[in-house]
């Protein structure tokens, strides 16, 4: 398609193009601009739950993964205020779970950790909660560690076995919210499906067993370059 059929908008002074209906996050990516996202993955229905993708449009903050681009829209993204807000969100996520990165198999490939690196979180400004959440290691091929879950619900939206959701969101209506795993379905996952389940989870809450530490330190996804740099280095194509 030609540029003419796309809509034109701006992110931090840069003129960008989007397909009608495209979310700000997805359109930004296509234009070589990184807006951090944790609960959003291309291809899954947006959830708008983590709020890390906050951008400012017309003086109002909105989640860029749920808001569609509008013609002539002016989006603020890389501003000190928004970056500080994102860092604060990351800090809240770190203290509300148990994130012992040195002993976590996802370390180096973890999106939460990578966003913390990108925004240079040296220490969260809030007290650590050290909550007690469960670990369920019953399935042969995967384990579910709720201590690291950030409630992004990517698993709920993206992991199925024979058309049925393996993970579900529990405890609506005031009770303690958590993700629960259907043990029967989880036990039936194939090697490949188990690997995909691990990949869908942005953090180390869903892990494929006997897979940890497979990649040496220094060669993992976010060891050398910040998350989003692959988007920023991508050449814009039309």
């Amino acid at each position, binding site marked *: 398609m030609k540029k003419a059929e796309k809509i034109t908008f701006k992110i931090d002074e840069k003129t960008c193009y989007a397909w009608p209906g495209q979310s700000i996050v997805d359109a930004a990516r296509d234009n070589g601009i990184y807006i951090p996202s944790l609960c959003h993955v291309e291809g899954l229905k947006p959830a708008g739950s983590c709020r890390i993708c906050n951008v400012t449009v017309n003086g109002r903050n909105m989640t860029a993964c749920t808001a569609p681009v509008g013609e002539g829209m002016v989006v603020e993204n890389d501003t000190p205020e928004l970056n500080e807000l994102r860092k604060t969100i990351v800090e809240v996520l770190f203290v509300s779970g148990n994130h*012992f*990165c040195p002993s976590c198999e996802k*370390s180096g490939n973890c999106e939460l950790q990578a966003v913390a690196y990108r925004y240079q979180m040296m220490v969260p400004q809030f007290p*650590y909660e050290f909550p007690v959440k469960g670990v369920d290691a019953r399935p042969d091929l995967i384990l579910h560690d709720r201590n690291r879950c950030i409630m992004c619900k990517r698993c709920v939206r993206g992991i199925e076995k024979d058309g049925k959701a393996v993970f579900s969101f529990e405890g609506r209506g005031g009770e303690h919210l958590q993700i629960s795993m259907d043990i029967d379905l989880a036990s039936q996952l194939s090697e490949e499906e188990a690997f995909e389940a691990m990949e869908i989870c942005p953090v180390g809450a869903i892990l494929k067993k006997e897979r940890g530490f497979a990649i040496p330190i220094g060669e993992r996804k976010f060891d050398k370059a910040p998350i989003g740099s692959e988007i920023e280095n991508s050449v814009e194509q039309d």
Partner: protein
Amino acid sequence: MSKKILATTSLAGCFGCHMSFLDIDERILELIELVEFNKSPIDDIKTFTKECDIGLIEGGCCNSENIEVLKEFRKHCKILVSVGECAIMGGLPALRNGISIKECLEEAYLNGPTVGENTEKIMPNDPELPMLLDKVYPCHEIVKIDYFLPGCAPRADLIWNALVALVTGNELELPYEVVKFD
């Protein structure tokens, strides 16, 4: 320029951060031009003999002695730096934070698979031993900490860059590869 005075300690840590500090290799020769060590395992000075400019803290607080030493560091050092994940968030020792002390001790001294003969069911009870805290605390939840250097252990370059910045007053360089949580 007179040398800055440096103190270091390892609380509930594994000395890995100190080992990483020594990984600055030959820069240690430059370091002793910049600083003079006071209380530290590096020179084995056990008690403060001077007021210090910088205190490096490895490890979090798991017992009453850690708290005492940390408070003493706060008293005698102008600037305190939490070095490493354990000082910053408790680290691996804090994995016990969801488990009661009783359960931890019973596992360690009575029921654990590596416990040998302990027919009298003795748990360490010498009054000289420091008391375990209810959980392992990050240092900044006990005293004010001025700077934080993450990592397990923090990369030698991070420790070096931070020390040089503190001593010279120049801005700290933070290349992407040096700030890691593992």
